[in-house]
């Protein structure tokens, strides 16, 4: 089932990328990133079945990072919303020096 799992993973990842590219709502973009992470997790798990359980450990770490990222990222979005009253990425250009 490795090939099939990789296929699903690739499709999910591509969907996540397209989502990041097309959506402007910060929260949805964020969720797209989570989707990409999940796609990668699927790859890890699929490979772990064939190459050893260490891959699952990586999934564990990815989830931890995703959790931390969600906590901080959502906090940023909240802080941003307080300032700008919007989560539309087009109206947010603080990254411009």
């Amino acid at each position, binding site marked *: 089932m490795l090939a*099939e*799992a990789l296929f699903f993973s690739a499709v999910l990842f591509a969907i*996540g*990328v*397209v989502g990041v590219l097309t959506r402007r709502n910060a929260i949805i973009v964020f*969720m797209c990133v989570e989707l990409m992470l999940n796609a990668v997790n699927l790859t890890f798990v699929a490979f772990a079945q064939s190459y050893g359980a260490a891959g699952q450990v990586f999934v564990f770490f990815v*989830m931890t990072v995703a959790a931390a990222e969600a*906590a*901080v990222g959502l906090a940023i979005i*909240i802080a941003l919303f307080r300032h700008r009253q919007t989560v539309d990425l087009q109206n947010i250009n603080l990254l411009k020096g």
Partner: protein
Amino acid sequence: MVVQDMPHGTLPLLYTFHFYLFGIIAIVSALLFVTRKSPVAAALWLVNTMFSLAALYVMLDAQFIGVIQVLVYAGAIMVVFLFVIMLLNLGQGVVGDARGLGWKLIAGAVGVALLAQIFALTRSRTPVNLTLPAGYTAQQVERTGAITPIAGPLFNEYLLAFEVTSVLLLAAIVGAVVLGKQRGEGDAG
């Protein structure tokens, strides 16, 4: 899903059917997720994708990860997302959230190109000589339980990384609190 009786490549039809089923559910849910205007709807479709993924994990002999997926992702992270959406009162789909049609087409083309590249790479670059015997992981799970295969490496080879993860989580908690705090409140009190 115990498949140790079956030689590799000759999985039971039911197993294959379910694998494809959950995979297709995940993909369709993901597609619906990116196309929904309403963030709440999008979030719920994403939860659906994650449940399907959990099912795939279980079928790939990663039962522990499957459980964690449901608990952490579908259960915790996505709930936090929904909380934030409600907190910021973003429930209604914002008109014009998505970019224009041109951008969508280009993004779709990029997605297809990316997909093609990933396929090309997976075909050419999958190492064969490292592959475990078919059903090895399943037998291990049968022998030692679902937790031991992941707990072993986690507390031996990856112990340091595991401990550092706790620091990462702590930092994330502190960061989230600091960022989420109302400006001025801290100064006042």
